C-alpha cells in the first residue's frame, strides 16, 4: 500500500490516486514523419525498470491534478514527487536516494 504525497493535498492513501504510466513520454511533435517502428516505440515500448521508475499519477479523488512520482519498483519506496512540466531538467537529474534493492523472499504458491 502506497502513501503518496500529493503536492497540493499532502500524503494520502494510494486508493485516492490513479496511475498514468511511465512519465516523460511526449507525443511525437511531427506525427506524419514517423515510421511504423517509431510509432511502435512511442505507443508500446516501455522502460519497465527494476529500480527507480518515473511515472505519472493523478489525485482522482482529491484535487484531480497530475504530477510525477519517482518510485522504486522493488521496494515501492517513493523517491520523490515532482511537478509535471519543465520535465527535461527534472528527468535528467540523477536519482537522489539510492535504495537498497533487497528482494522479498519467495513465498510458496498454491
Amino acid at each position: 500500500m502506497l502513501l503518496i504525497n500529493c503536492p497540493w493535498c499532502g500524503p494520502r492513501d494510494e486508493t485516492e490516486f490513479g496511475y498514468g504510466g511511465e512519465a516523460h513520454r511526449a507525443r511525437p511533435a511531427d506525427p506524419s514523419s514517423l515510421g511504423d517502428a517509431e510509432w511502435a516505440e512511442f505507443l508500446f515500448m516501455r522502460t519497465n525498470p527494476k529500480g527507480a521508475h518515473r511515472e505519472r499519477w493523478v489525485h482522482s479523488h482529491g484535487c484531480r491534478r497530475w504530477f510525477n512520482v519517482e518510485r522504486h519498483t522493488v521496494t515501492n519506496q517513493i523517491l520523490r514527487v515532482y511537478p509535471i512540466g519543465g520535465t527535461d531538467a527534472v528527468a535528467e537529474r540523477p536519482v537522489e536516494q539510492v535504495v537498497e534493492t533487497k528482494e522479498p523472499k519467495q513465498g510458496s504458491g498454491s
Partner: protein
Amino acid sequence: MAKYSIFSLVKNAASHHQNWDRAWRDNRPKADGYDVVIIGGGGHGLATAYYLAKEHGITNVAVIERSWLGGGNTGRNTTIIRSNYLWDESAALYEKSLQLYEGLSQELNYNIMFSQRGVLNLAHNLGDVREGMRRVNALRLNGIDSEWLTAEQVKEFCPIINISKDVRYPIMGGTLQRRAGTARHDAVAWGFARAASARGVDIIQNCEVTGIRRENGKVVGVETSMGFVKAGKVGIVAAGHSSVVAGMADLRLPVESHPLQALVSEPVKPVIDCVVMSNTVHVYVSQSDKGELVMGAGIDAYTGYGQRGSFHVIEHQMGALLELFPIFSRLRMLRQWGGIVDVCPDASPIISKTPVENLFINCGWGTGGFKATPGSGFVFAHTIARGEPHALNAAFGLERFTTGHLIDEHGAAAVAH
C-alpha cells in the same frame, strides 16, 4: 529414469519410500556449452526444453534457473486451465495447450492432477451477456466446446452461487467450458523437469543469468553466477523479469511488469466442484484438493517487481467473492502471495525470434500463461529449433507491434489490465 507405476509404488512402500530415484539431475553448467540455453526454469522454460528434446532431437540443452524450479509464476498461480479465447489465433494456441494437458500425465508419466471440472465465466450486465454469447459462438466456430448458461442453469451447475436479483451486480448468465479446469501447478513444472532430464537436458538451479554475451551482433552465450556458459541459441522465458533479461541484450519489449496476487482460505469440505470466474465483480475461485478455496483477482495498476501486491485489491476481491457466495462470509483466509506478471498491450503473449541473432523470446503471458504451459513450450521449441515460428505462434511475433496486427484479448484474459 525409473517409470512411476503401481509396482514402483508398492516396491518403494516396502522400503518406507526411502529409495526413490531423484526426479531430475541437478547439473552444473558444462564447460563446452550447449546448443540451446533456456533462461528461466518455470513451466514454460522446462516445457520448451522437453519439446526441444522430444520433437526436435535437440538434447544438448540447459535450463538455467536463478532460484528453484517453478518458484516463479508457475508456482504462484491459481491453476486455471481453459481455452475460451475470442480470436482465432489465441483460440488455436490455447486449445493446442489444453489438448496437450489432456494427455500430459500419461505422456510425462507424472500425475499433474489435471481436473476437467468446468470453468464458468459469469455475466452481470447486458454487455457481459453479449460478449459471452459472442465468445461462445466464436469458440464453436473454432471447434472448441463452449455453452451459454442462463442464471438458473448457472445455479444448477454451481449450487452454492447466489443468483438473487437484489444484488448490485446480479448474475445474468454465463459461459461454460466443460473441458476446462485446473491442474497441480508444481507437478507441471516437476513433470516437465523430470521428463526433460530423462532425455538429457541439463537442469541448473540456483544459477542466475547476469548477462547475454554477443559477438558481431550474434548471441554466443550467457554470463551467469556460475560463470560463462556457451550457447548456440538462447531462449528467454523469464515471465515477470522478461524486460530485465531482454535488456541484457539491449532488447526493448512492449511489456510491463505488475504484481498479481492470489490467496487461499482455510481448508473446508468439498463445496465447489468447478471454477467460477467473474470479470465484472472480479474474482475467480476454485477449491483445491486439500479443500482450500484458491482465489485471484486483478493486477496492481502500477508496475512493480516486489512480490506482494496492494491490500485494497484483496479487499475488492473479497467483496466480490461474498457477493457471489454469501456462504463464505465466515471463512478465514490463510495465506496470500504475489507474483510478477509481464503484461503486453494487447494481453497476448510474444513467442518470437528477436532482432538479435540466435536470441529468442517467450514472454508477455501476463496473468494467464499457466494454461498455456505445454502449448507454449511446444511452439517455442519449434521456433528455436527451426529458427521460424510454428503455424500456431506465427501471429504472436514481436513484429505485430509495428505492423499493428495486435491480438486484443483483454476480454478473454479475464483479469482487468
